[in-house]
């Protein structure tokens, strides 16, 4: 990764520090590397997870999320680096010595065993008395909302129910670490929404340290205490959902989490950039702004475009034409183009209210402003990251 310069993140946001937590870490991953032949699936991953935390690995398909999860579980062996769970170095320990429960997208329920036998699968092997096992299984089935399905076989349950059984089975042995690999991806949208709330509530109640893999940013934002955004086998950013959304550390994160309009820009003095012929003010940040002429990428979330009470003197105010409107239920997404700078296009979200109040329609001309604080400045890297400005 070669960047011409470093951006100091705004105060309170330190991506490097975000990798660590205040409390002593329950899970500690150091410099983890995994290669498949000449392909590097995980490239020196550093990560710490606190006890009781809910962490999501988020990233596009093939970025290494599953590999990282399986390596933590010991189902895959790293080429370099170390893993500590609960203060114990388990880098070379077999999975059975790592104390985790796991749930897969495919549920992986044993089809020939009843729900009860599935949930009790890990208990039977511990020489627990039969009555204790039965009580524990009943408790777990109540916990996941399937109190009287114990005698059924997996094929007789819906996908959502099967995934609950898988969850109960993973929790049965009270593991210190719960690993979920895209547990909701095979389910219908409605079931998915419902189950994700339940998993979150259950996790809070039990306080079990949890890592969930997902490629769905909405899921990650809704569920996680902290999100680990990955791309091409490296961690792009670690932070709370809000940090990730509001202060993405890279154009890739900005683009992957939520929607963002990007502009090709160049630096033009402290707090000033140039997009085409237009000059824009941006937040300068605490330390040095890049030298004049440095190529930059500017990002703006559609909901940050200001429209109410914009006056000529406001920063970055200009007139824009509504080219196109996309109806998305509670709000509309507009494609706007600057009247005085052809080719300068951006997306803006307007609530249904606003649409009505301001009479916004295709072809209307609006006075808009782009608040300097909401314009994110990224180095321009062509190897990866967000798409260019929508042309």
């Amino acid at each position: 990764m070669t960047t011409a310069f470093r951006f100091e993140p705004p105060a309170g946001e330190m991506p490097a520090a975000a990798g660590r937590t205040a409390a002593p870490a329950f899970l500690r991953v150091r410099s983890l590397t995994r290669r498949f032949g000449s392909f590097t699936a995980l490239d020196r991953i550093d990560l710490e997870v606190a006890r009781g935390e809910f962490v999501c690995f988020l990233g596009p398909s093939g970025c290494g999320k599953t590999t990282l999860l399986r390596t933590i579980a010991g189902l895959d062996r790293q080429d370099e680096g170390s893993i500590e769970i609960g203060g114990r170095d388990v880098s070379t320990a077999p999975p059975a010595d790592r104390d985790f429960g796991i749930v897969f997208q495919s549920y992986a329920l044993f089809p020939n065993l009843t729900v009860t036998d599935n949930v009790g699968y890990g208990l039977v092997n511990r020489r627990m008395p039969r009555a204790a096992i039965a009580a524990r299984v009943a408790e777990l089935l109540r916990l996941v909302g399937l109190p009287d399905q114990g005698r059924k076989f997996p094929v007789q349950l819906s996908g959502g129910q099967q995934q609950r059984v898988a969850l109960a089975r993973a929790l049965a042995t009270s593991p210190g670490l719960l690993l979920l690999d895209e547990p909701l991806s095979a389910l219908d949208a409605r079931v998915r929404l419902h189950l994700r709330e339940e998993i979150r509530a259950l996790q809070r109640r039990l306080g079990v340290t949890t890592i969930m893999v997902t490629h769905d940013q909405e899921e990650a934002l809704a569920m996680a205490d902290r999100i680990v955004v990955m791309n091409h086998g490296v961690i792009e950013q670690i932070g709370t959902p809000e940090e990730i959304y509001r202060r993405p550390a890279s154009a890739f994160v900005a683009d992957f989490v939520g929607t963002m309009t990007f502009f090709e820009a160049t630096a033009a003095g402290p707090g000033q950039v140039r997009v085409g012929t237009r000059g824009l003010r941006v937040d300068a940040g605490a330390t040095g702004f890049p030298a004049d002429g440095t190529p930059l990428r500017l990002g703006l979330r559609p909901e940050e475009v200001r429209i109410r009470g914009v006056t000529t003197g406001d920063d970055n105010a200009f007139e824009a034409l509504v080219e196109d409107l996309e109806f998305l239920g509670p709000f509309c997404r507009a494609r706007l183009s600057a009247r005085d700078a052809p080719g300068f296009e951006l997306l803006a979200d307007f609530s249904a209210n606003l649409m009505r109040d301001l009479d916004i329609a295709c072809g209307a001309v609006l006075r808009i402003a782009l608040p300097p604080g909401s314009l994110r400045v990224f180095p321009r890297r062509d190897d990866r990251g967000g798409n260019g400005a929508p042309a």
Partner: protein
Amino acid sequence: MSATTVTAAPPRRLLTEERVATGLVGLLCLLLLLAIALPLWALLSKSFLDDQGRFVGLANYARYFATPVLVQSLLNSLFVATLATTIVIPLAFLYAYALTRSRMPAKGLFYALALLPIFAPSLLPALSLVYIFGNQGFLKDLLFGASIYGPIGIVMAQVFYCLPHATMILVAALGLADGRLYEAAKSLGTTRWRMFRTVTLPGAQYGLVSAAVVVFTLVITDFGIAKVIGGQFNVLATDAYKQVVGQQNFAMGAVVGMVLLVPAVLAFFVDRLLRRRQVALLSARAVPYAPQPERRRDLLLLGYCILVGGLVAAVLGVAVWASFIRYWPYNLSFTLANYAFAEFDPDGWQPYLNSLWVAGLTAAIGTPLVFVGAYLLEKTRAVPLGRALAQLLAMLPMAVPGMVLGLGYVFFFNAPWNPLGILYGTVAILALNCLAHFYTVAHITAVTALKQIDGEFEAVSASLQVPFWVTLRRVTVPICLPAILDIAVYLFVNALTTVSAVIFLYGPGTKLASIAIVHMDEAGAIAAAAAMATCIVATAIGVKLLHLLLDAVLFGRAQRWRAR
């Protein structure tokens, strides 16, 4: 927090999963090396040594190719194999076409008819042909004075013997059709002949080549048919037998074995190459082809199937019938005298019991071995190198004809330095040989079944700290039970019917039924040979029927969890 972060050492267990898996993979490798690799190595090295065990380079090969009789056998083998393949493939293709692309009735019955010869030793069609076209055959005149003993008989018997194998491959190939291609062609107004040429044939081409390769190899390597009906017409397999058993010329036997190995190995690689391509041919979104009823086509194909299927049944039936007849063709009254084997062979019924014993042993030991072996290779991750070696060895027998493996066993287990020599002539070596000979198909069956179950079961059990052998017993085996039964029946039936490998390995008291057939036929007791063959067929079919019954009962209603 800090109070709970005790550096708890993992519980020390002697039997860790990794150690158990490593040990089992090691055992599997050892067994496969003993049963497959070392005998082949013994054969290979023997072909470069003279009678005194001195290295003579290619001298044996030079002598082989300088001996006109032996070279003639090679040419003979190639000739009958080519001819039989040329006849079987179109026959089987049309038959498979009828089974997959028409709406004719009773497809299941006709498929079963075509598969019948699988349950018989290859000797059986040869014996039948002797009854039909032999010196006292009732259709002898159809040959216009030519003798059934020789290439004509061999080719005819091979056609029956190979038909099921070709039919199975072609039914699979034609069954893979993508219905959308036909709909597209039809909507473009394509004529039927053109559709056949541009859609059907290209779709089946890999199957056709694969079937041809398999049939060619079967014919070249088969021993039983040439032995019974070959007369003075020598082929490779009978040469190997004569060199080793007749003349005790082990070096030359080894060379013949190596020559026999060439077409089989070539066929193996061609087949693998084709299979790999075939998979890519059909996309996951293909729609299965469902033929529309079409009276004229369906009737024609039905007629064809009645003819071919009927012939197959008739040819098998003649030998069975003849075994119950007093004196062909003069006295056709019913008798069981031919089943009083003691009259024809000093061992009496013993060979049949031996066969049951060997087949039962092969199935009883082979089935768990093959399945657990496949499980280790497929689902565990211990000793990658060992698993790769075992995988290679498991696929090897497919490329090794029974005669060759049998020769290898002779040279390996008979070697004076080998302490395993005590096995020679025992039931154990016969079962081991059968297992090695039929290992590949059984292994592939197990692997296919294992691939179909969720790949995360082992991960889940590891996370629950349940060792893999518990999950194997509680989950994997119950799920794979149908495949396990398939393997057991496959091993049993094949161990029961095989001749080629075991002909070198039996000892006093361990003669098998299929070998008794050869001996009784040699001694001119054809009716008794037919009777023994009938016993084998009846047993094999009985076991298969039992299998079907078990399948229906066990997996039909009793297992609610399989239902969807």
